[in-house]
């Protein structure tokens, strides 16, 4: 059985949560480099209307399975000490953080590529769905661009 980690967070990911995650790694004396990716909800304008929030849902059983594959994959491919992925569910306002990837390693060399790779895998392989909500309560379904 693959270990399923707590990945999904109801609501926005707070800066305090990120600070706590960082602080937890300060007892690991073999870590020299951390790389963190944060996805923030943009107030994009579509045909004159502004996005005010994204409402995230997911296919949880499959998402957790995929995320643990991504995890194993990353540890095989890169020389990492720690790796964490968090994603929001529910309504996340523009300006708030909905995605947090945290990679730690002895040395810095591999952390950038590892982070980029993990972010891309989450975007392409994990069944998370997003509804972009406009000021006037109208909405459109978000599609990731590559």
């Amino acid at each position, binding site marked *: 059985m693959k270990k399923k980690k707590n990945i999904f967070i109801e609501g926005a990911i707070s800066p305090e949560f990120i600070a706590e995650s960082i602080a937890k790694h300060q007892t690991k004396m073999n870590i020299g480099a951390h790389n963190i990716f944060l996805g923030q909800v943009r107030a994009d304008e579509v045909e004159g209307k502004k996005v005010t929030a994204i409402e995230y849902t997911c296919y949880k059983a499959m998402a957790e399975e995929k995320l643990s594959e991504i995890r194993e994959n990353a540890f095989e491919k890169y020389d990492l000490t720690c790796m964490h992925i968090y994603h929001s569910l529910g309504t996340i306002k523009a300006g708030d953080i909905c995605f947090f990837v945290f990679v730690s390693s002895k040395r810095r060399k591999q952390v950038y590529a590892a982070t980029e790779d993990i*972010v891309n895998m989450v975007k392409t392989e994990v*069944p998370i769905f997003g509804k972009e909500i406009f000021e006037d309560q109208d909405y459109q379904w978000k599609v990731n661009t590559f």
Partner: protein
Amino acid sequence: MICIKYFGAIAEVTNCSSETIEKSNSSLKEIIQDIQSRYDLKHIPLKFALNQNIIEAVEEIEINENDEIAVLPPFAGG
């Protein structure tokens, strides 16, 4: 019984998040065709998953009692 799950833009069209169907010896291909005939999903790029795995080649996959089929709209995580 086979459980079919719908997500995001698709659940909006089907107006439900899941339904169960009797298997009665249908193939996966027939089940998918049945879903597509009952709901107007032509405007949404779809993926199908069987038991949490994306289906690459519909023809080659057998389905069994209690399988879970998911109809997935484009992913938008991150």
